[in-house]
């Protein structure tokens, strides 16, 4: 049994003329809580519980990509993480030269890439002064907030 928004509105209409302030409904496939909110009206928390049975799933669900751990960093190296999770891009546009490459000097404000989250672009700053030692996330790869995008050898760290 599914409840449409119209059904929920009908429930509220029925309740409105009653003296009731709250209704909680639990069915096999859904729960619904409708609550009188004073003069402001009514609110509803509607949850569809049915778990979809996905077809064509044989080839589905690739395992999560292994995230290189910070622990694997060589001594004295600094990892650069994305400011928020998203797809990492090394260049400002497809085909354009990368913001930085291995061996490039960076400082705290140097933009080393872009993270695309929900179709919005956020610049990634190195956050440290030094030299780019290696990239750990490829162009176009998805990066969680704890992913290592690249590794910087901080200035003055070398003997």
């Amino acid at each position, binding site marked *: 049994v599914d409840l449409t928004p119209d059904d929920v509105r009908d429930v509220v209409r029925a309740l409105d003329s009653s003296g009731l302030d709250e209704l909680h409904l639990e069915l096999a496939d859904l729960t619904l809580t409708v609550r009188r909110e004073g003069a402001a009206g009514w609110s509803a928390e509607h949850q569809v519980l049915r778990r*979809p049975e996905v077809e064509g799933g044989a080839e589905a669900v690739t395992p999560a990509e292994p995230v290189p751990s910070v622990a694997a960093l060589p001594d004295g190296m600094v990892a650069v993480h994305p400011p928020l999770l998203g797809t990492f891009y090394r260049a400002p546009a497809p085909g354009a030269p990368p913001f930085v490459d291995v061996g490039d000097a960076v400082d705290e404000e140097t933009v080393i890439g872009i993270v695309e989250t929900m*179709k919005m672009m956020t610049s990634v700053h190195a956050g440290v002064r030094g030299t780019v030692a290696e990239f750990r996330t490829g162009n176009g790869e998805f990066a969680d907030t704890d992913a290592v995008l690249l590794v910087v050898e901080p200035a003055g760290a070398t003997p």
Partner: protein
Amino acid sequence: VRVRRLLVANRGEIAARVIRTCARLGIESVLAASDADLDSLPARCADRVVRLGPAPAAQSYLDPAAVVRTAVAVGADAVHPGYGFLSENPALATACAGAGIVFVGPTVASLHAVGDKLTARAHAVAAGLPVVPGGEAADVAAAQAVAAEVGYPLLVKAVGGGGGRGMKLVRSAEELPGTLAMAVSEAAAAFGDARVYLERYVASGRHVEVQVLGDGVCAVALGDRDCSVQRRYQKLVEEAPAPGIPGHVHAEMAAAALALAAHLGYRGLGTVELLYDRDRQTFSFLEMNARIQVEHPVTEMVTGLDLVAEQIAVAEGLPLRLRQDDVTLTGHAVECRINAEDWADDFRPAPGRIERAVLPVGDGIRVDTGVQTGSVVPPHYDSLLAKLVVHGTDRADALARTRAALELLRIDGVVTTAPMHRALLDDDEFVAGGVDTAFFERFLAGRRQPAEVS
């Protein structure tokens, strides 16, 4: 063709919206979902769910071959593309036709005619619509010739762009060659089409659009909408009808939209976007969108129609079920887009898990949502979570009821733009009505410098 099994090739709130109409019409809905959406709210509402592909849109919602393959695999007789993704992509419509599947949208010819912004402009001119002064800029010399006619400031627009994408402002003749070169290379990269054109930049314009519905022979206009509250060309609030416009101008805009629909022999739902000049009370053609729009519910509220049902009917080849005389507009409707973004932190995107979603309910209130308590909001797609749509007897009533409804809306777990809407509804200029597209930046600037006066 009678549609009995429809593949929904989209996600989020619009997928749930299309599934709802399918259920009402007795059409079996099959949701084509990416790996990120297999347990989403629309997946739980659809009759069936089939895997479309991996989470990145390029490998799922943006892959025409994957969509048609999936439609064939489940034996669907129609595909509904929603908005965005492949909704205006001729490749999907062509592939559907090749597989004998109904594409719920316009003909391939119409998609080409309005998808190319220069062609669309030429059609609008041919149909007698006023257009913003401008023209094609094949090279710097051509651009300078056009610029000499339209004057500065002007916009460089990608022919393959639209919806605010692929536009650049040029303030003076000195900026033109550099900006033109940048626009051409960006257009090539983003749209696979390097062509650009120039258009006069109208500083104080409103974004007003007319909803049309055609069956290929006849068309009706279903009133207009105002979508001027925008940030970086992304709409935030829409309303119907567009406020503060003289009655005869509403009628002229509808007539213009119908002229274009007739010229194109248009079949399907379409939106004719117009730039409305506040000072002169005149309008010009901007572009036509050949799909259902995010903001279609405000039109549904004031017309009482189910636009998805009408869209499916004309896609089936049925003639229009209503005449222009049958269309009456009642009251005023407002839509607030609730996005997973932190407006207090430069609209930083906020994917995550919805801990709790409590929504307002009642007469004249409609919430189209793609999420519920427990839903995961993936980072791969746009940030739209839900749309609060409120219908009132007039604009003041609709705004008052929207304010009350927003107080009841509670989405925990991710940051949303609901607080921004509360602030907007307290803004004098917005409440007065008829703001231009530059309004929202002024509103934000005003908030950044809170009154420090005593």
